[in-house]
C-alpha cells in the first residue's frame, strides 16, 4: 500500500494520541515484543507481506483494534434487533442467526476487554455509530435504509464480517509471543468466518449472487473509494511460498484438475487474505463519528 497514505491514516487515528501515555504504561505490564523485533528475528519479506509494510503494531494495539471492531459489530446487530416489526423476514431462522451473532460479538467484547484489562491496557471508549454511513447526517448515506431494508442490512453485515475475518488474520502475526492470546485470536477469527459464511448464505437464500466465501463471481456490493477496500487484495490469483522463498506456487502445474476457472476463481476462493490495520480503520471510520 501507499506508505504516505498509511502514515497519514495512522496520524489521524485519535487513539494514537489520546492513549499514548496509558499505552506506554501498559507495555511494561504486557511483557511483549513489538512486531519490529519479531521481524528482525524472523525476517519477513516485504514481497510476502506487502500490506504489512511498516506496520509495527504491538499486542495491545492489535487487541484494541479487535475490540473496537467487535464493539462496532455488537452495536450494529444490537441496533438491528430493535428494528421495527417486519424488518426481519418471516422465516424465523434469519432473526435467530442475528441474535446468535450479536451474542457472540458481545462475548468477544467482554473477552477482549478482560484480556486487555489484565495487561493493564485501556479498553477504547465507545465512539458514536452511524451505520447509514452519513456521519450523523453530515454527508451522503452509504446505507440509508440499513435498519429498514433487510437486504441492505445483510450487505453491510457481510462487509463487516468479512472485514473482521481479514482483520484477525492480519493481527495474528503480532500475537506470536503469547500462545493464549494467539489461539484466542484464531478462535475469534474462526467464529467471524462462520458468521460471514452464514450472512452470505442468508443473502443467497434471498436471491443474491454470492458464495459462502469471497469469490470473484460474487455480485459486487462495494462502493468505489468507500467500501471497496473490504475486498481490495482479497481475490489474489497468486499465492507465494512462505518467506524466505517467496516464489509463486504454480497451481496450474499441480494435480488439481478444475478447468479454465482454476486461477481466476478457485484459487482466489480457496484463500482468505489479511487486511492491514490501517485499512480496517478506514472501514470502521465510515460508520463512526
Amino acid at each position, binding site marked *: 500500500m501507499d506508505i504516505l497514505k498509511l502514515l497519514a491514516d495512522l496520524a489521524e487515528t485519535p487513539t494514537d494520541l489520546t492513549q499514548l501515555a496509558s499505552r506506554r504504561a501498559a507495555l511494561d505490564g504486557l511483557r511483549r515484543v513489538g512486531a519490529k523485533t519479531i521481524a528482525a528475528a524472523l525476517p519477513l519479506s516485504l514481497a510476502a507481506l506487502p500490506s504489512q509494510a511498516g506496520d509495527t503494531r504491538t499486542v495491545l494495539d492489535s487487541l484494541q483494534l479487535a475490540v473496537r471492531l467487535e464493539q462496532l459489530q455488537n452495536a450494529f446487530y444490537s441496533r438491528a434487533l430493535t428494528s421495527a416489526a417486519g424488518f426481519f423476514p418471516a422465516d424465523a431462522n434469519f432473526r435467530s442467526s442475528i441474535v446468535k451473532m450479536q451474542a457472540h460479538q458481545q462475548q468477544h467484547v467482554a*473477552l477482549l476487554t478482560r484480556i486487555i484489562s489484565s495487561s493493564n491496557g485501556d479498553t477504547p471508549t465507545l465512539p458514536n455509530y452511524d451505520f447509514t454511513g452519513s456521519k450523523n447526517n453530515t454527508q451522503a448515506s452509504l446505507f440509508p435504509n440499513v435498519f429498514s431494508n433487510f437486504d441492505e442490512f445483510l450487505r453491510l453485515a457481510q462487509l463487516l464480517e468479512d472485514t473482521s475475518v481479514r482483520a484477525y488474520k492480519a493481527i495474528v502475526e503480532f500475537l506470536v509471543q503469547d500462545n493464549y492470546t494467539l489461539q484466542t485470536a484464531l478462535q475469534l477469527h474462526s467464529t467471524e*468466518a462462520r458468521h*460471514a*459464511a*452464514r450472512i452470505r*448464505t442468508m443473502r443467497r437464500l434471498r436471491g443474491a449472487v454470492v458464495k459462502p466465501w469471497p469469490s470473484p463471481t460474487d455480485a459486487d456490493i462495494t462502493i468505489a473509494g468507500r467500501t471497496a477496500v473490504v475486498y481490495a487484495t482479497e481475490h489474489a490469483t497468486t499465492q507465494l511460498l*512462505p518467506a524466505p522463498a517467496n516464489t509463486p506456487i504454480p497451481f496450474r502445474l499441480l494435480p488439481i484438475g478444475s478447468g479454465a476457472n482454476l486461477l481466476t476463481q478457485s484459487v482466489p476462493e480457496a*484463500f*482468505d487474505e489479511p487486511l492491514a490495520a490501517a485499512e480496517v480503520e478506514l472501514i470502521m471510520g465510515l460508520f463512526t463519528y
Partner: protein
Amino acid sequence: MQRRSFFKVAGASVAASTLVLAGCSDDPEPTPVAENVLAFSGFNSTGQPIDDGILNYAYLLTQLEAAFYLKVVAAPPADLQPGELAYLTDLRDHELIHREYLKAILGSKAYDSSAAAPLEFTFTSFTLTTRAGVWAAAQQLEDIGAAAYNGAGKLLTVTANLLALAKIASVESRHAALAHEMVQADSFGATIGADGLDDAKTPTEVFVLIQPFVPIKLSAANLPTT
C-alpha cells in the same frame, strides 16, 4: 510459539525416533518398519522445534478432505438440491488447492514425498448415497479441520507458516458453516462455545477423530504441545 518447554518433549522424540516418518526422504513407503505408525515430528535431530510436523499434520487433513470431496463429486447422491453439486465441486477444488499448497510448502519434507502412492482413506462409516449423509459427513470433517487449524497455529515457530495456515483456516471455517446450514438452518454456530470462541483441538484430539478414516495408526507423540 514458546520454546521454553521443548527439551522435555525432545526426549520423547528421540525415544520414538524409529517410528518417525516426517522428513525421512529415504523411506520408500509412508509405512515405517517397526510398527504401522505415522508419527509426525516437530523437532529436528538436535531437538530444536521445527514446523515440519505441524505442516505435515495440516497436509494430512487437507488430503483427507480432498479425498472425501473427490469421492462425493465423482458419484454424487441422486437427491442433491439445485446448487449443491456446485457447492461440493467448489469444496473439492478448494481442498485440492489447499492440499497442493501445503505439499508445495513442505516440498521434500512432505511425509509422503517419496511414497509410491498416497494414503488411501476410508469413508465407509459415512452414508454418501444421500444428500443428508454427504452434508453430515462434510460437517463432521470440516468441523474437525477448523478446530485443528485453530489449535495448530500456536504450535508453529515460523510466522510465515502461521500466516500461510491462517489463509486457509478461515476458508475451512466458512466450509464448516456452509455444511452446518445444509444439515440444519441456523446451526452455523454449533461449535462456538463460551466467550464466543470457535472450537480448537490439539493434534492428539484430532488424530482420535480422524483415525477411522486413515489406514495407518497416527501418533502425535512427537508433535509440539506448546
